[in-house]
């Protein structure tokens, strides 16, 4: 996330730490913890965060990391959250991501937010 250089809020890994609230519309970037059958893909803390209705309402998309060694369950958290929260899985990358991944995500998010804003604008007018 540091390499991406975009404003971000961290969901703490430990349940004992305070859970932040979504500051506005956001894209979730999440690791994957799935086992061989895809179970447990989404970290408990991410689930806790999304269980908060006000956070979920602002979720516009998800980007997931993982490891291709997990075969069909590569970055599975993205698919699980997309299905559960009815939002698009925008991108998947491996481990900490390559420079190419960072560049694609940065440019992609820029376009994505532009698109979101113009859609909102049209909706407001209608």
């Amino acid at each position: 996330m540091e390499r991406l250089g975009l404003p971000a809020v961290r969901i703490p890994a430990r349940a004992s730490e305070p859970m932040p609230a979504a500051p506005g519309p956001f894209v979730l970037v999440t690791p994957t913890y799935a086992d061989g059958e895809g179970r447990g893909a989404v970290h408990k803390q991410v689930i806790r965060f999304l269980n908060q209705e006000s956070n979920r309402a602002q979720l516009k998309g998800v980007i997931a990391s993982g490891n291709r060694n997990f075969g069909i369950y590569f970055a599975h958290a993205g698919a699980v959250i997309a299905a559960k929260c009815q939002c698009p899985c925008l991108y998947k990358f491996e481990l900490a991501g390559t420079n190419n991944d960072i560049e694609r995500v940065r440019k992609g998010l820029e376009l994505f937010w532009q698109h979101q804003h113009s859609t909102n604008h049209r909706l407001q007018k209608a």
Partner: protein
Amino acid sequence: MTIHSTIEPAARAVNWNRLQDEKDLEIWNRLTSNFWLPEKVPLSNDIQSWATLTPDEQKLTIRVFTGLTLLDTIQNTVGAPTLMPDALTPHEEAVLTNIAFMEAVHARSYSSVFSTLCRTAEVDEAFRWSEENEHLQGKSRLILKEYRAASHPLKKKIASVFLESFLFYSGFYLPMHWSSRAKLTNTADLIRLIIRDEAVHGYYIGYKFQKSLAQLSESEQADIKDFAFSLLLDLYDLEVKYTEDLYDGIGLTEDVKHFLHYNANKALQNLGYEGLFPENICQVNPAIMASLSPNADENHDFFSGSGSSYVIGKAIATEDEDWDF
């Protein structure tokens, strides 16, 4: 007067309800739920497919699997056990026993492939070859040197991550290649189970490495990093020669090298380091990537698509007891 007695610390029982590091339980659960045995895979369905390989392709395949068996044997009998005395928690030691045993299962699996598909004499020849191939022996020696020496605990972990996350891949390439041509697909299923396990092993040992590394001074950290990159380059030189030995005959060496670069970078990332090889030489043949993670690329880059044609996933197993909406 002196008292002639040594006070030994009390033997400690491992208490899984008192964790110092939650990662230990998480990985224990992951590894135990991923447990498998080669009997689970219907290898005999590959008998007809095996017969479609040329004698040279069969020989190559047996040699590749024998090389993999050697690495799994090292990891089972030396690698994982040698990390135990350095464990930070009793739970970590228990996880390492699981890793050691699964490496034994991996090594045993290749023999299941052999007994299903190959003639004994061919297999015996390959085992002889593995003892005589200088590059295979060379990389084993480099790794064993770090395991056996009174080496720094972190150097042992580096060697272990490089074995698990880098050295296997010159071998894993071949079953993925056959599978991309619809050959030996059951064997490929078995190899994918091994590949999955190695990912967890590399991640966990890399995690423990990073935790201990953070305790060191800056100059010690710099020494460890220098060691890691120089060991990687030494291993890489041997891997390239080993790859040429094996794959020049079927013209796949360059393709395999890209796969090596890609995995070397992932091994470094497991240790918390940046990749070494530039991305243009890490572009793996898409057929191999598809063979490694079937379906993984479907809708995975929304950004490069039209921007409106994404598909929201459906029928995905979620743990509904955790989600309360």
